[in-house]
Structures are given as C-alpha cells and as structure tokens.
C-alpha cells in the first residue's frame, strides 16, 4: 500500500452549461475508492454548483446537486468554497445547500463539509496538494 496523497479537485465551471461539473463529481466518486486524501475546491463559476434550489426538469438533464450530499459517504468531507467568488456573484454562504458528513472519529457526529475560505487561503490550500485536478 503506497503512501496517501493529497488530491484536490478544482471546480471553476457552472453546473449545466458544460459537462465539466458532472464529470468532476463522477471522477471524485470513482476516485474515492482509492483511499486518498481527497478534497474539492469551488471557485469562480464553480460556486454555482453548490447553490440551493436547482431544478432541471425544464431542461431535461439530471439535477446532480443532491449528489454532493452523498460525498460524506465516500469520505470526501472537505469542500472548500471561496468567499470572494461568492461575493462577486452576489451570493453568500446561505445560498449554498447544506452538506454534512458523519465524523467516524467523533462518535459519528454530523459536521458541515462546506468550508468557506478566502482567496488567499484557497491559494494556500492549492499549494499544499500532491495532485491538483482541474475541471
């Protein structure tokens, strides 16, 4: 068994206009089987992926926003969202859906997966990775 590496999936695209967002989520779900230290970053238009109230009925594509709430089951528990990207779009943390995970090491207590970070903190997080995958 090789050493655990830090993988960051960087999401910078809105969810339905292109296939990037869905592809990213699928790769994360598949990649979770490899038991690495996985986290996801949402910045620029990527923050739109996590907003509440998405309903895709009229456009005939799958609404995959509920799938983000399953990430905790796959041990993906760190979703970093950039504050400046939210603000630039007139959004705040309250516009994002609630995503939680159960902390195995803390009596399965339910904890928030979304962590709001500043642009500077986001740059530090990116610089702290072994592998950065962009979508």
């Amino acid at each position, binding site marked *: 068994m090789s050493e655990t590496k830090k993988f960051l999936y960087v999401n910078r695209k809105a969810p339905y206009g292109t296939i990037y967002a869905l592809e990213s989520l699928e790769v994360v779900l598949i990649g979770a089987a490899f038991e690495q230290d996985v986290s996801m970053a949402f910045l620029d238009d990527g923050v739109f992926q996590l907003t509440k109230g998405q309903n895709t009925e009229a456009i005939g594509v799958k609404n995959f926003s509920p799938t983000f709430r399953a990430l905790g089951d*796959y041990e993906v528990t760190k979703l970093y969202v950039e504050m400046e990207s939210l603000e630039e779009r007139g959004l705040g943390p309250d516009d994002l859906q609630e995503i939680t995970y159960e902390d195995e090491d803390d009596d399965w207590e339910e904890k928030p997966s979304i962590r709001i970070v500043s642009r500077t903190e986001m740059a530090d997080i990116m610089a702290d990775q072994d592998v950065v995958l962009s979508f």
Partner: protein
Amino acid sequence: MSYQVNGHTIEHDEEGYITTLSDWSKELADEIAKVENIDMTEEHWAVVNFLRDYYDEYQIAPAVRVLIKAIKKEMGPEKGNNKYMYELFPYGPAKQACKIAGLPKPTGCV
C-alpha cells in the same frame, strides 16, 4: 431487449438494466430477479428498498462499500458485511441489487 410484466413491455440495455427509471414496479423487480436467478426474500427487499431510497435522495446508486457501510449502520453488523450481501446477491450486491431496484449501474462499477 425487454422484460414482460403484466402485459407491459419494459426495455432494458444489453446488461439488463432498465432504460427508463420510472418503468420500475415491484412486479418488474420480481421479473428481473427471476432472470437473475434470485428468489426475492424480505432480506433482498430490504436492500433493494434501501437502494431506491438512496437514489431518490442523492441521484446516484451507491458504490458497494458505501452500500455495505450504510446497511451496517441501519440494520446492524450481521447484515452490513460483504459475506451477507454476496449471499443475497452472488454477482455483486450493488450491481445485481441495483438492476433489480431499477437503478442505473453504479458509478465506477465495471
């Protein structure tokens, strides 16, 4: 390629997964199970119903280990383990049970 249930024809792909999720019914599940050589017991139904609820909530079929972990949490360790699951669904719990549950093939399942 299709299943026949109560005079209705329900299309499936080359692996037996139904192509339209809303076509599913309990009768269809029994029919798919028959093709898979599985006698549906209460225990089978518990897993199938769990999968349908999971899909309904998250829009994905869970990976096997996620399924087993969740079943363990909900129904206890004597059911939430590989051995029990493979006894119920010999060709893989997620794969075979998902097919019976009328869900798409789990992501990352080859």
